[in-house]
């Protein structure tokens, strides 16, 4: 039993790290641009399939680095060509646009790579279990968590110590004043969007190594990621990180006790958090005005 709990908590943390990676990207975009990016799961798919296409030439490690960058580049173009036009309008417009984009990406993926799942192999060095007792902790799972930890840490350093990061944080609260101080907020939003999409692309490559590729692989991750943001508190990236890990562990633990509720539990969690703290765990008054 103890091992079962340990297994599920570890599993939950790993899934939670994924939710967090996705949710932080969503959160960045929501905070600075006010766009609820329903295409985020689509960008995850693009990242995964790009890695698949690049692996024969670049190998796993090359694809792991290049695919997220290419995904970010596509995200950058999408922001410049489409999403930017809807800034300042009712959020419903951008929501509908990204919703449509999600379908286009999904069907585009089907057109190019087929509707059936594809295998995505990772180096043998990463697939072996670390020990027999804890057979479920494969090297690849540890690697995924480490990658998420490193990238999220890098992002927090960027936001904290670089001028662009400071401007992004300032813009989260008051973009108009950032603009009035001469900062090119258009470029800032494009860059910020691309960073968010980079995280989605990376999540795609990492997920592909674990569950393989499918045109709909982003769907299952998208809703929990939105919930991670709400649980953690809109406007707070630390909250989003915490929210992702929490709902991951919660659904992992529920899988031990009452497996059929493991998906429902995250919605229950959201309801409880919203009742107790309407702005989420780390959400603050006026963070998104």
């Amino acid at each position, binding site marked *: 039993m103890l091992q079962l709990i340990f297994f599920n908590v570890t599993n939950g943390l790993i899934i939670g790290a994924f939710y967090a990676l996705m949710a932080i990207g969503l959160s960045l975009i929501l905070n600075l641009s006010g766009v609820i990016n329903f295409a985020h799961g689509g960008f995850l798919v693009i990242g995964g399939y790009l890695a698949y296409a690049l692996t024969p030439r670049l190998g796993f490690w090359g694809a792991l680095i290049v695919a997220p960058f290419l995904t970010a580049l596509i995200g950058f173009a999408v922001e410049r060509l489409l999403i930017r036009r809807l800034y300042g309008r009712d959020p419903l417009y951008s929501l509908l646009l990204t919703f449509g984009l999600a379908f286009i990406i999904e069907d585009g993926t089907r057109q190019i790579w087929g509707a059936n799942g594809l295998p995505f192999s990772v180096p043998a060095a990463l697939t072996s279990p670390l020990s027999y007792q804890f057979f479920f902790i494969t090297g690849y799972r540890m690697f995924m968590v480490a990658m998420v930890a490193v990238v999220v840490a890098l992002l927090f350093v960027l936001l904290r110590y670089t001028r662009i990061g*400071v*401007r992004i944080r*300032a813009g989260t609260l008051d973009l*108009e004043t*950032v*603009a*009035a*101080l*001469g*900062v090119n907020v258009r470029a800032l939003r494009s860059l910020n969007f691309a960073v968010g999409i980079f995280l989605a692309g990376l999540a795609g490559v990492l997920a592909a190594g674990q569950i393989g590729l499918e045109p709909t692989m982003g769907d299952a991750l998208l809703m929990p990621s939105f919930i991670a943001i709400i649980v953690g508190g809109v406007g707070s990236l630390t909250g989003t990180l915490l929210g992702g890990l929490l709902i991951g562990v919660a659904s992992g633990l529920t899988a031990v006790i009452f497996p059929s509720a493991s998906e429902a539990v995250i919605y229950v969690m959201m309801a409880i958090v919203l009742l107790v703290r309407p702005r989420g765990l780390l959400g603050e008054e006026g963070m998104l005005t």
Partner: protein
Amino acid sequence: MSAALAAEGLDTYYGKSHILHGVSLKAAEGEVTALLGRNGAGKTTTLRSVMGLTPPRQGRVTVFGQDTMHWPAFRVAALGVGYVPEGRRIFPNLSVDENLAVPLERPGPWTKASVYRLFPRLAERKLSRGRQLSGGEQEMLSIARALLVNPKLLILDEPSQGLAPLITREVFRIVAQMRAEGISVLLVEQNVRMSLAVADHAYVLDDGHVVYSGPARELAADEARVQSLTGASAEEWGPQ
């Protein structure tokens, strides 16, 4: 006398409400121009219109000879316009030092080091968050932030709002110092007497119309007008 900023016939709306009705004004280079009027007269809207924050529907805005109509605010600011918004609008979650890292730093005499020299109090509170500052410190921070743009024109929207008299005097002393350093200033204020003492030219706005334009000294000498300014209406001021 060339103008740092010239606005002609601005018509600005918030949604469907018509706020500015053909407002024209000039901020002459090297001078302090005061824009006065009671609450709701359209002073802040005028500043927001020339900055491009609330774009006017009609009219013309020229900044340092450039037609800036339809420009986004960041491009207007990048021409060398420092903007100190109403209510200071400092970033509450960022430290003082981080607040000062936000603005575009055009080349010029103002750097972080020199604004810290101008406002030693800010240097002492470098690591405090914006929300922990007093009103006066927030005002200093908001001015310091605008100075880092190395403005040729400084636009201040009610810098003395909610400040103690001593700090208000300090704010006006800084306005005078900026003028002495050759920066043009466009000042919106409730504090009529102190504004007229520091200004070269004055405009009075009422209900979205310019109802007075003239030398600040002339307006200051007209005690009846100065007194009525707090409750001035278009009728009292007569047609322009």
